[in-house]
C-alpha cells in the first residue's frame, strides 16, 4: 500500500505544521495544567506522602490532614492492641504565627511536631537522619529551602513562633504545603509552641505501621469497627492523602477551573487543527476526486484523511512530551510543585489524540466535495 497519508504529511509539512503545533500546545497545556494541579493539591498531603506510615488515626470525619483536631492518647493504645500493627507514633499539628528576623510581618505557619528518633515515620522520606537528629535540640526547627525567603530567615537564624524563640537548624526539600508554610519540629518543641490551652498535651494524629504483607485497608477497617477508646477514624495513608488533595481541589473551586480550562484548550485546539486538516483536504480535493473516479471508495479516502489526523496527533504528542519533560525538570529544579502520574499523563495524551481525531472527522466531511464529475469540463 502506498503510504499516501504519511508521504503527503512529510512532503507538505508546512501545510500541516499549524495542526501539529495546535495539538502539541493543547497537549502541553493539558499536561502542565494537570502537573500543576497534582503538584499544588498533592502538596496538601505532603505530611502523609513524605512519611512512611501505613495508617493514620485522627479526629472523626476529618476532611483534610490540615484540619485535624486533638484526639485522646487512648487511640494510640487501641492501635497498639491490634495484632497487625507493629509501630505507633504520635504527630502533633500546631497552627502558629511566625515572626522572622528580617521584616516579613506575621506568617501563618503549620508546625509539625514529630518523633525525632532515627526510626521515626513522620517525614522519613524528606529528612536525612543527621538532620532529623538535630531536632532534638530545644527550639530547633527545619523548613523547606524554598520557604526561607518568605520566612525571612537563613539557616542558623533565630525567629519566633507564637512568641517562643526557635532556631532554624537546617533545610530540606519537598516540605512545601498548601495554605501555609510548613515548619518541622520535635514533639517536645511543638508542645512548647502550642499555646491553645485546651489541647495541652493532646496529639493530633497517631500514625502506625502494619506488619509487612498485611493490607493496611483491612487493618483500617477493623480498627474503625468500635469507638470504645473515644471517637477516632483510621484511614490508610493513601486514602487520607487523596482525601486531603481532593478537599483542597474542590474547596478552592480549582477542580471546576481545571475542567473549564481543559474544555477551552480542547475547543481552541480542535478549531485550529480541523481548519488546517480541512485546508489540506481541499488542497488535494482534485486528486482525491480522481482516485474516486478510478474507483477508490469514499471509505478508503476517509481513512487516508483520518490517518493524516492520527499522524498529526502523534507528532503533536511527541512535541508536547519532549517539551513537557524539559519544563517538568526545570520546575522540579526550582521547587515548583509539579507532579505527574502515568494515569493522568495517559489521560492528557489521550485527550489530545482525541482532539486530533475529532478534527480529522471534521475534515472527512470535506471529502464530500471530492466529486469526480466536477473534474470534467
Amino acid at each position: 500500500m502506498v503510504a499516501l497519508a504519511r508521504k503527503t504529511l512529510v512532503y507538505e509539512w508546512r501545510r500541516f505544521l499549524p495542526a501539529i503545533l495546535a495539538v502539541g500546545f493543547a497537549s502541553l497545556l493539558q499536561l502542565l495544567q494537570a502537573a500543576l494541579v497534582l503538584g499544588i493539591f498533592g502538596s496538601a498531603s505532603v505530611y502523609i506522602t513524605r512519611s512512611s506510615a501505613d495508617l493514620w488515626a485522627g479526629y472523626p470525619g476529618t476532611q483534610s490532614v490540615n484540619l485535624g483536631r486533638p484526639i485522646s492518647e487512648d487511640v494510640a493504645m487501641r492501635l497498639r492492641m491490634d495484632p497487625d500493627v507493629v509501630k505507633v507514633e504520635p504527630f502533633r499539628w500546631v497552627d502558629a504565627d511566625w515572626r522572622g528576623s528580617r521584616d516579613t510581618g506575621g506568617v501563618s505557619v503549620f508546625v509539625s511536631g514529630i518523633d525525632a528518633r532515627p526510626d521515626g515515620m513522620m517525614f522519613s522520606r524528606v529528612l536525612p537522619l543527621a538532620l532529623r537528629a538535630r531536632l532534638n535540640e530545644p527550639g530547633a526547627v527545619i523548613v523547606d529551602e524554598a520557604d526561607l525567603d518568605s520566612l525571612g530567615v537563613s539557616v542558623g537564624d533565630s525567629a519566633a513562633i507564637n512568641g517562643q524563640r526557635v532556631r532554624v537548624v537546617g533545610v530540606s526539600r519537598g516540605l512545601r504545603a498548601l495554605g501555609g508554610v510548613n515548619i518541622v519540629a520535635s514533639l517536645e518543641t511543638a508542645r512548647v509552641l502550642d499555646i491553645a490551652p485546651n489541647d495541652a498535651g493532646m496529639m493530633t494524629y497517631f500514625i502506625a505501621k502494619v506488619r509487612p504483607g498485611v493490607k493496611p485497608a483491612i487493618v483500617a477497617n477493623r480498627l474503625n469497627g468500635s469507638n470504645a477508646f473515644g471517637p477516632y477514624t483510621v484511614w490508610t495513608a493513601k486514602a487520607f492523602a487523596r482525601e486531603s488533595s481532593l478537599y483542597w481541589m474542590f474547596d478552592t473551586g480549582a477542580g471546576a477551573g481545571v475542567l473549564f480550562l481543559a474544555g477551552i484548550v480542547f475547543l481552541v485546539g480542535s478549531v485550529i487543527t480541523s481548519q488546517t486538516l480541512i485546508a489540506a483536504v481541499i488542497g488535494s480535493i482534485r486528486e482525491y476526486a480522481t482516485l474516486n473516479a478510478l474507483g477508490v471508495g469514499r471509505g478508503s479516502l476517509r481513512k487516508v484523511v483520518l490517518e493524516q489526523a492520527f499522524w498529526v496527533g502523534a507528532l503533536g504528542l511527541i512535541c508536547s512530551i519532549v517539551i513537557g519533560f524539559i519544563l517538568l525538570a526545570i520546575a522540579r529544579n526550582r521547587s515548583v510543585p509539579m507532579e505527574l502520574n502515568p494515569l493522568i499523563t495517559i489521560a492528557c495524551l489521550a485527550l489530545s489524540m482525541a482532539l486530533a481525531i475529532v478534527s480529522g472527522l471534521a475534515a472527512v466531511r470535506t471529502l464530500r466535495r471530492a466529486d469526480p464529475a466536477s473534474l470534467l469540463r
Partner: protein
Amino acid sequence: MPASVPASSATSVTLQARHVRKTFTSGHIESTVLHDLTLDVHAGALTLISGPSGCGKSTLLAILSGLQRADSGQVHALGHDLSHLGMRELESFRLQHTGFVFQGFNLFPALTALEQVELPLSYLGLPKDVVRKRAMDSLEEVGLGPRMKLLPAELSGGEKQRVAIARALAKQPELLFADEPTSALDAANGQIVIDILHRIARTHGTTVLCVSHDPRLVHHADRVLAMEDGRILSDHVPPSSPTNEPR
C-alpha cells in the same frame, strides 16, 4: 438516430446509451444538456466526441462512465445497467473496469510517478509484487520507464499527463475515458498523448472514449462524434483515420 455504426462494426459494443436525457437546474432556470441521446461505442477503437464547450460532451462522458446519473434513459457499460447501480456498486464497477484521464493531471505532489500508478492499483487487492510490476510496465508503455522515481514537480506537463495515463492504464481497464487530455499540452506533447491513447485502444482492445474540442485530435481518432446543443450532429470515420490507412 444519428448513431449509425461506422466501419468497425465487427467489434463489440461496450458502451450503450439509450434515450439518455440530462437536465440541470440553476435557480429557476432549467437547461437540458442532453436531449434523448442514443449511442453505441465499440471496443478496440478510439472514439472522439468533439464539439464546442457547453455542448454536453463532458456530461455525456460522465454519464457513460458512471460518474453521474442520467435523468432518464438507460446506460449499459460492459453489460451492466449503470442506472441501477448504487454509489458503492458504481465505485466498485469503476475500480474494476474503468480508467480516467483528465485535463488537469491531478497527481499527488508527494508521490513519485511509480507511486501515483501503484496507488489505485493497491485498492484492487492485488499482491504487492503484481502491483509493482503492473505499475512499472504501464510506465514503460507510456515511455516513462527512466523517470518513474520522480515527483510531479520534476516532470514536464506532457510527462505528468503520461503518468496520469499510466495510472489509468495499469488497472487494465476495459473502458478508458479521457476528458480534454491534450488541452493543457503543447502540440508535440498532445501528439504523444493521443498516440498513446490510440495505441492502447489497438493493442489492449480497450474502449477509449475521448472528449475534446481540440481539432488536432480528429485525425487520430477511429470515429468522431460531433456534438452540439446536447445532440449528436454527425458520426463519421475521419478521412485520414488510421482505420482507413493500410496497416
